[in-house]
């Protein structure tokens, strides 16, 4: 059979047309345990990132919701003194309501019944009849008009001047503290996502270096045959992208499944206690980008690691 050896192939002068879209893997990367474990690592990290990001989105939404809810209301409190008759106190409440309703920007003003005030204090003071004998302050709940503007300082000044013992609470202090607290949680969530990213990056670098070490001989042969660094990096990056997408999809599906489960469980609870799982429709697409971003990061990390390592070889 060797008699058929000829130089026809060598003298064949057909031009070689480039094919940019071909994907072929000359390196048996999946034989390397460190690379085989990559989808599991990416999957776990995407799951953690999805859950953390979902938490951050919910906290952010909650802060906005609470902030908006509180900015639409004011509370007038009128302290009761021991020598003040209930009739006199009731008159002050009516005066306060009248004053509020005359103020531009106020939509409604409603006195909270003494029973309701007592019910609010019951968890701390007990539900027995003694509460009724205490000089509890009267509360007036003021709702602001949606598009109205109110001069709170002027309202407070007029209220305190006209009605002795009255005060106005615009919840500013409580709201500021709450927003600061929620922003801190958001920042921590951001740091956690960043740490998850850095950990993923580090694992990918180690897995890629392991692959480079395991397949060093094959890489050398590819180089000697004329492969560019880009060609060899392409082998790693396409494998890393595929593994990243695979692991990321699994992690994302698990994460979103967990969130759906929690959201479903929350619907069976008192929504006043658990408004946490009120996902907005745009939250889901944001969460769905996590595996895509992760896969892209994995691909780019593998690529840069290989190119930097190859630069030191041959």
């Amino acid at each position: 059979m060797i008699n058929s050896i000829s130089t026809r192939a060598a003298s064949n002068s057909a031009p070689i047309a480039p094919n940019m879209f071909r994907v072929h893997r000359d390196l048996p990367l999946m034989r390397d345990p460190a690379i085989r474990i990559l989808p599991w690592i990416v999957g776990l990290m995407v799951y953690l990132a999805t859950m953390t990001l979902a938490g951050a989105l919910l906290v952010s939404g909650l802060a906005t919701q609470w902030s908006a809810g509180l900015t639409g209301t004011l509370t007038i409190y009128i302290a009761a003194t021991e020598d003040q008759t209930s009739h006199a106190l009731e008159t002050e409440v009516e005066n306060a309501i009248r004053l509020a309703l005359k103020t531009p920007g106020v939509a409604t003003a409603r006195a909270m019944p003494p029973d309701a005030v007592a019910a609010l204090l019951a968890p701390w003071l007990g539900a027995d009849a003694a509460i009724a004998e205490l000089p509890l302050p009267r509360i007036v709940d003021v709702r602001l008009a949606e598009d109205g503007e109110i001069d709170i300082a002027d309202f407070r000044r007029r209220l305190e001047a006209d009605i002795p013992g009255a005060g106005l609470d615009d919840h500013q202090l409580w709201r500021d503290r709450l927003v600061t607290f929620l922003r801190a949680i958001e920042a921590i969530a951001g740091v956690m996502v960043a740490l998850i990213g850095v950990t993923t990056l580090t694992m990918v670098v180690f897995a890629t270096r392991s692959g480079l070490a395991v397949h060093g001989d094959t890489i050398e042969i590819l180089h000697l045959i004329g492969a560019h660094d880009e060609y060899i990096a392409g082998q790693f990056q396409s494998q890393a992208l595929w593994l990243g997408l695979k692991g990321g999809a699994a992690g994302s599906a698990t994460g979103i499944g967990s969130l759906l489960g929690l959201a479903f469980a929350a619907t069976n609870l008192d929504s006043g206690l658990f408004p946490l799982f009120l996902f907005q429709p745009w939250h889901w697409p944001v969460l769905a980008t996590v595996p895509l971003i992760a896969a892209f990061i994995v691909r780019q990390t593998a690529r840069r690691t290989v190119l930097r390592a190859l630069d030191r070889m041959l």
Partner: protein
Amino acid sequence: MYLAHRPSRGVVKLFDRDVTTIQRKARSEMRRKIGVIYQDFRLLDHLSVFDNVALPLRIAGAGKNQIRTHVSELLSWVGLDDCLDASPSTLSGGEQQRVAIARAVIGRPSLLLADEPTGNVDDAIAVLLLYLFEELNRTGTTVVIATHNEALVGRFKHDQLHLDQGGIEFRPYSA
């Protein structure tokens, strides 16, 4: 000569270019002009015979159809058309050598370096391989063969370089 190492000093010229100063990418391009037949073959066992031979074409960016045609043709010519899907590790030494030769010549190199290319084949096949190299030379490929088999190369009418005791001696062919 096949650019396995970067020269630390001096001047080494290949294809009229100083390989000590060329850029990394240009070095890869230059390697594509060089076909190398290694003494230990250096075939990739995780790839089939077909894929081993196709490697230089793939690296050069050839299309699938071109690769299929050229590789099948060349493997047929070296008598391995029934081993396309075999792993190199399952082939005999002589067959592996022919795969290595096919891989070295498929890219139509300007320079062919063969390190003991006849070391694993019998004399009859060795002669045929040298005829192949001679034909390549006639079509414009510079062929450099390193061998201990003086009797074999003595049968061909070409210049020789003899390495002996650290010295080098040029023996031009004289008819």
